[in-house]
């Protein structure tokens, strides 16, 4: 018998038992599609956060108070430590030149903004003018915080695009309107261009900016909490970080501050996101398993009928290998077709979902889910055939 005859036998059998074929494929489709989709969400999340981070400016070095070790955690000390930075340090960093382009002090706190009876809780950041350059923030309307605003502690505020929208809607012009923070009135001086991105993690478009001096007074602080140091270019980031460290050590102790490069932060965050992807992968694996059990179920339920069928085929003269080849082709065709449909559905789902959150289909999820489903499909498709092919035809015919 040549192979095309076997194919015809198998395809006829699949067509004759449509419901069984479809249900088996459904198990494979669900398993494959869900793994691809869920893993694409995890990978997309990772890509999204990475891109958000680099949009902050990848030449930036962060100086944080206290000792922070990203690998070993805070070792029992509180994460928020009292800052010992002086504005003098920032001025010196700006003067030193070399690998350092500029430095900017910051203080950040969560606070409630009110206007027109609307109120929003947003990150309020006290800044110098140069922070807008370092973090690539540009104004959509009005002006950014000027260094003269800082010098005179003016009560001006620059709103992130989302916060402007939330407080004033899309109709009203927020410029020169008044917003209050703890009863203190600020004038809106500018609204920032949107940084884009969805609602995962910190939304940069919610942040609002006020002059650092005003912020220190408003929140009753005396020292900036963070210093951003911008290196000349990507290549000089390490130099900038060591120059910064050396300069600060002249006045402060080793344990008083930590200099972090962006890539260190990024790798820590990616580690965390990797765990999320793994968790999503775990959920997907469960659906793969459920799909697999579905396949087994249908295959096992049809064993009785199929055993009789095999008995009959043997009685009318099918040689043992003919039975096996037919069942193998059936299982392979179901697994292949189901797998391909699953891959298509999973990918289409990921593409559709990317309108809401970023997704990215990864090859390993496709390969893994497809091969697992195909394995289950083939094993449980062929197992009854192997068993039944060993029975003598009459026993198989009478199988209950």
């Amino acid at each position, binding site marked *: 018998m040549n192979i095309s005859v076997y194919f015809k036998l198998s395809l006829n059998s699949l067509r004759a038992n449509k419901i069984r074929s479809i249900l088996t494929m459904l198990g494979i489709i669900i398993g494959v599609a869900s793994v691809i989709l869920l893993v694409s969400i995890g990978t997309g999340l990772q890509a999204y956060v990475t891109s958000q981070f680099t949009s902050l400016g990848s030449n930036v070095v962060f100086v944080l108070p206290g000792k922070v070790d990203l690998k070993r955690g805070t070792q029992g000390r509180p994460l928020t430590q009292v800052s010992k930075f002086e504005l003098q340090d920032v001025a010196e960093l700006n003067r030193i030149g070399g690998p350092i382009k500029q430095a900017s002090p910051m203080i950040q706190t969560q606070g409630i903004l009110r206007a027109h009876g609307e109120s929003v809780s947003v990150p309020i950041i006290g800044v110098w003018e140069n922070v807008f350059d370092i973090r690539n923030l540009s104004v959509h309307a009005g002006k950014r915080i000027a260094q003269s605003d800082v010098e005179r502690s003016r009560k001006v505020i620059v709103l992130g695009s989302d916060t402007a929208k939330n407080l004033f809607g899309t109709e009203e012009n927020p410029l020169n309107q008044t917003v209050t923070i703890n009863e203190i009135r600020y004038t809106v001086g500018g609204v920032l261009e949107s940084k884009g991105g969805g609602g995962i993690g910190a939304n940069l478009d919610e942040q609002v900016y006020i002059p650092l001096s005003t912020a220190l007074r408003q929140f009753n602080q005396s020292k900036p909490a963070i210093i951003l140091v911008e290196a000349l270019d990507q290549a000089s980031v390490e130099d900038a970080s060591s120059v910064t460290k050396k300069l600060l050590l002249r006045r402060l102790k080793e344990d008083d501050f930590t200099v972090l490069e962006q890539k260190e932060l990024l790798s820590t965050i990616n580690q965390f996101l990797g765990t999320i992807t793994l968790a999503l992968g775990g959920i997907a694996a469960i659906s793969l398993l459920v799909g697999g059990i579905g396949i087994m179920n249908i295959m096992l339920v049809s064993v009785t009928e199929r055993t009789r069928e095999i008995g009959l085929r*043997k009685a009318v*003269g099918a*040689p043992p290998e003919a039975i096996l080849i037919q069942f193998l082709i059936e299982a392979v065709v179901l697994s292949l077709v189901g797998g391909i449909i699953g891959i298509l559905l999973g990918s289409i789902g990921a593409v559709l979902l990317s309108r809401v959150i970023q997704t990215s289909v990864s090859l390993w999820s496709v390969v893994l889910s497809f091969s697992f489903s195909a394995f289950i499909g083939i094993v449980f498709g062929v197992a009854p055939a192997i068993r039944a092919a060993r029975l003598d035809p*009459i026993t198989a015919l009478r199988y209950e």
Partner: protein
Amino acid sequence: MEGVEFVALQDVSLTVSKGEFIAIIGPSGSGKSTLMHLIGCLDTPTRGILSFDDADISKISSRDLARIRNQKIGFVFQQFNLLRKTSALSNVELPLIYANVNAKERKDRAIAMLSNVGLADKLSNFPSQLSGGQQQRVAIARALVTSPLILLADEPTGNLDSKSGREILDMFQELNQNGHTIILVTHDMNIAREAKRIVQIKDGSIVSDKKK
């Protein structure tokens, strides 16, 4: 029952000649099923000689047995054993597929055979759309489509009403008159009387062998 030796047939000697219509009769457990399995090349004897069409097949492989079943034996079962979701025509074509007959000839021969059993107008019907008698006639067409040397029928009327049963038995008579060798296995003496020779089995041995 594993490990316990069970002797189903002992000292049985039976020769069937071409063109005979023979009934094998006996109560259940008498060994008539085992005898039928041997005659039908579904099983080989543990001891003794089984020869078929002038060849000793006592010790041949399961693959060769399958070939003999395919080419030289036609089975008719009590339960019809048609493939449920497959048309009458495809059911009859099935043995020809395993005989490597090409598609066109397969179809022609299956149609001719279904016409012979009076089902020319039911080619594309599924078994569920046919009466019991019609299903058994499809099964007979399937058994005969390979032009076998013998037609082996196991309680062929057991699942039929008396009228359909009568029709099937008449069909067997007609086939026998046309030269087919028929072996009918039954427990019912009334049906056995259709045959020209009746072999009675009891406790694994032949107790009588009468020709009409």
